[in-house]
């Protein structure tokens, strides 16, 4: 059964999402009713030219800015509903959304383990438990041997894997990956996508990869194109990862 067609208990779903900046004559509609659904364990691509509303959509999905209208559910939780929103967006970002950035942006003064364990610690979990959780993920991503290293001692690929581990550590239902392969060559970029696919399946996480990177587009089964604040879904090739 196609995950996108089922009424999911996980993943992310948005309906009619709108975002308007400014008021009156100077108002700009960055999103004009975006629909999107990504099921648990699924990795989809989100592509679009500059000024298409891609960043605005990413910020709405990441609970960084509030949409003007529309509805968004994360798993079974209603996040936005036509002007209403859940009260604590910060806690939502901490517990329900994972982020992977173009650059790893690891905290330079924390070692690899604590960079990953910081999120569960912020959520109130004991340090020991948080570190154990981090080490498990680092093991799954083949960087456990660098657990005590500082970020500056890691290669670019290792840093990106640690960043993925950080995004996953709280077992969020969705991960937003913003150009995660941009600075990488083809081989490393595909390796990162391979890891994201594996993690999505392993942890039942919905992953949205924002990208311009044409070399990784064939790896997605579904791709959302965004243009002028509206999304269009396209079936992808989904090559190589099943």
């Amino acid at each position, binding site marked *: 059964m196609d995950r996108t067609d089922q009424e999911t208990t996980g993943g992310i779903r948005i309906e009619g999402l709108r975002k308007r900046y400014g008021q009156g004559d100077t108002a700009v509609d960055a999103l004009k009713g975006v629909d999107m659904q990504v099921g648990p364990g699924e990795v989809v691509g989100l592509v679009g030219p500059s000024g298409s509303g891609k960043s605005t959509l990413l*910020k709405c999905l990441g609970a960084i800015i509030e949409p003007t209208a529309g509805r968004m559910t994360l798993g079974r939780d209603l996040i936005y509903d036509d002007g209403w929103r859940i009260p604590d967006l910060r806690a939502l970002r901490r517990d329900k959304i994972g982020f992977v950035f173009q650059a790893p942006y690891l905290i330079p003064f924390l070692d690899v383990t604590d960079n990953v364990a910081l999120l569960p610690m*912020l959520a109130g979990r004991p340090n020991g438990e948080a570190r154990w959780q981090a080490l498990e993920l680092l093991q799954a991503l083949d960087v456990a041997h660098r657990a005590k290293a500082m970020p500056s001692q890691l290669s670019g690929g290792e840093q990106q894997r640690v960043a993925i581990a950080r995004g996953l550590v709280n077992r969020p239902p969705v991960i937003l990956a913003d150009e995660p392969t941009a600075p990488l060559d083809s081989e490393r970029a595909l390796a990162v996508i391979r890891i994201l696919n594996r993690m999505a399946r392993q942890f039942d996480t919905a992953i949205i990869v924002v990208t311009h990177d044409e070399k990784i587009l064939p790896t997605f089964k579904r791709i959302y194109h965004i243009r002028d604040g509206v999304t269009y879904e396209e079936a992808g090739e989904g090559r190589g990862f099943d």
Partner: protein
Amino acid sequence: MISLAGRDILHAWGKFLFTGMGLGLLIGVTLSMAGIYRGMVDDAEVLLDNSGADLWVVQRDTLGPYAEPSSLYDDSYRGILGMPGVVRAANITYLTMQVRLADAAASADVRAMVVGIRPDGPGHPGQPGFLVAGRHITRSHYEAVADIATGFALGDRIRIRRNDYDVVGLTRRMVSSGGDPMVFIPLKDAQEAQFLKDNDAILRQRARTAQNRELNRPGVPGLLDAVIASQSTNPYVNAVLVQIEPGADPDAVADPIRRWKRLGVHTKAGMREILVAKLIATSARQIAMFLVILSIVSAAIVAFIIYTLTLGKIREIAVLKLIGTRNRTIAAMILQQAVGLGLIGFVVGKTAATFWVPFFPKYVLLEPGDAVRGFVIVVVICVLASLVAIRAALKVDPAEAIGG
């Protein structure tokens, strides 16, 4: 939860340490300035305590021997001794001057307060309270007891005006209100030293007196000699130090002296007021200004450093905010770093001040209470200085972490 501030400090420990050391030297200077003020107050207290007096009898309408010139006849003490409540009274003179070794080869001289005392021995007013070496003055001429801060040693021969004195005893912490070490000499020598003229001046004075018809009358033999003799002696002292009966009220003893002897009398409390509130008041205000300026400079430095360090972590702060770190956690991180910097600075400053204070030429007193107050002020300054950086950090948009 791990300490983000602690980890950042450990990660960039060199930066924090060297910045803290720079700040610490500034704090050390601030503590030293406070110590200089305390030293001045302590010098004044020590001067009063070491004088061994309960009352200072001085020229009427003057503030006494330390703050204003005062002279009264050297036989005044006899009448004062007869006043009710008085146990001991002793003449004393004070003269601040350069004192040097009599040895012509030794060119170095010392700024000292030369104190003229009657060689009555310890316990009498004006006497050096205790000696660290040698003995008290026993002869009426040409012996001296010096504070060790003068640098003189036992057996040294020092020159005061035209006379040489043997250093027979050494004492400690006997200083003037200005912090100059004291040199005690016999009263008669001190009186002479105060008004001693050079030989040419004496000759000129004698000639002028001889030419004065009023003072050199042909029909009054011996008048000229008597006048010249009176011009050559100094019957004045600066003060009479008085010890009163144990338990007696100083004011009750002082009042009859003021009334019947028509002299000025200051109690210990009054003299302390004169020394601290009048004599060193301007210096204290000067130091207070320095302390205020140094505090502002320290605050500005801490604020600048913490602000710069925070701006250097804007991206990390954006990431922390994006992944759900509370604002108060980020504020606490910056605050702890500022306070940490202050702690490093305070430890370095206190250590540095303790190390360099003994090398100051005048007495510097580092009081534990001042250190505690300094520590509290440093913490408060650091907290205030971190506010600018905290404000900047809290304004960081989490969206900066994902660009766009």
